[in-house]
């Protein structure tokens, strides 16, 4: 998981923005919803309450087409840092959708947390 300290350090050394210009409205979800693997994003959603998940879902859903268009200006195998973070936020929306669209609760019914399943290898490109 990217820590706020790590993002600050990156931004200080490269003058790189945390998110691409035009997506500053989503800064409130960093670092909370930023996970660097499918496994990390699964865990992030599982740790949030339903109100927080719903809030993230609603805000991200209306921005999703704009994010997809922005990301497609680059090759998926070479996303610049700000675009990568923006896209990883959108990938977390897939996790939020599990709670909002399927379970209508933060986690699968009758499932324990923490649980034992690990996604050792997720989809590529873009971890």
């Amino acid at each position, binding site marked *: 998981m990217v820590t706020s300290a790590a993002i600050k350090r990156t931004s200080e050394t490269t003058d790189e923005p945390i998110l691409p210009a035009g997506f500053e409205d989503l800064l409130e979800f960093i670092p909370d919803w930023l996970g660097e693997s499918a496994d990390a994003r699964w865990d992030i959603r599982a740790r949030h309450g339903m109100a927080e998940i719903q809030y993230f879902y609603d805000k991200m859903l209306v921005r999703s087409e704009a994010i997809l268009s922005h990301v497609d200006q680059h090759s998926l195998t070479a996303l610049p840092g700000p675009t990568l973070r923006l896209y990883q936020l959108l990938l977390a929306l897939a996790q939020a*959708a599990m709670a909002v669209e399927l379970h209508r609760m933060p986690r699968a019914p009758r499932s324990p947390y923490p649980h034992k399943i690990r*996604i050792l*290898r997720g989809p590529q490109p873009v971890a």
Partner: protein
Amino acid sequence: MNDMPKITDICASDITRMAGLDTGPVPSYPYYSPEYFELERENLFKRAWLTIGRVEQLPEPGSFVTKNIEIWNAPIVVTRDSKDHIQAFYNVCAHRGNQVVLEAKGKAARFSCGYHGWTYRNDGGLLGIPDEANFFSVNKKTCGLRPIATAVWEGWIFINHQPEPEVSLETYLGGFGQAFTNMVWGNATKSILFEAHLNANWKVIADAFAETYHIPCIHPATIGSTFANRVNPFSRPISAEFWGPHRQVSTFGNPDYAPPTHARVEQMAYANIDTGNVLGAAQKGAMEAFLAHPAVNPSRSQHWAVDVTWAFPNFQIDLSPGGFWSHRFWPVSPNSTRWEAEFHIPDATTARERLQQELYVARIAEILLEDVTNTERTQRGIESGAFPFMQLQDGEVMIRHSLHHVDKWVKARTVAEALA
């Protein structure tokens, strides 16, 4: 409503008797008895051919992977040498038994033991012994990495604990192997890997993926409406096939499934992408050769969702309109298992495709969580001894078939007898 099909038009009935199996309750003790587990270890897992994965894990000469085969109590290394030969070895130094290769995977022409520097080629041969002059005439030819019987079938790598297996892999797979000859394993090079160490017998976990009777109950939100509808509310299978100890059941899919209107992320991610159902990852159009294979949806049913194919004893391959995935159930103790599930996906070239894959993985993860979480509860119940027998219905025929053949192997004096 009048033209709604009847369940008897869609689903085969009496498949348990068709498979030549009894229909009575089955004993519970094979799921927890330490004595039975030891018999499984010696007579089943040390005599049967076991799958460790696909050849694509070893993409080029020099590629290697290491694995831990708990039921053999053995660390192994599998290599592809410069002649493209794939071979498994005990990952054990001939000097004093240290593990030679410590990385999970990689590429190397030679391996050097970290203890005293004995060095091996990736074809197992011993290359060099530091200060060899101070040993007492070591025969280097007999001190290579010890090979394990290895064979490849349709890209799947199998190993056998017997130094000289009683039957070849071809004989072992028999009619099942023939039925799947020339299968097109689409997107085999790319996969998502799940793993869990679970407090349940390996058969409890394998059973959890071998019937669809549980789907409306355990997976109401994730895939309930994908596998059942009003005509088939309890998700009875469409058909079944049996080849010796191997087996396949074709499961029912709701042909009318579409993302519900409230599922706005699912609709957005799957816009212009048709994977047939939510369990496969590839677009249907790209899977024509795979879907045309006679072992995929063998009854050519319009109501087909997934073929659950169970290669004896601990390997399942699932075939769906969007591709294939597999499960391996590695016994650790009578009530613990390492389970791995590998799902194959195509390359994503657009942001929407990659998002769809993330949604796919997220849903699969939820389904697996619902499945395997339940296995630990089941194990505790079975182990309580409350019931010495289990009741199995016709749709659970693969579990009955599995128990029958496990028991046959456990009791057989020879592999030929077990396969007879």
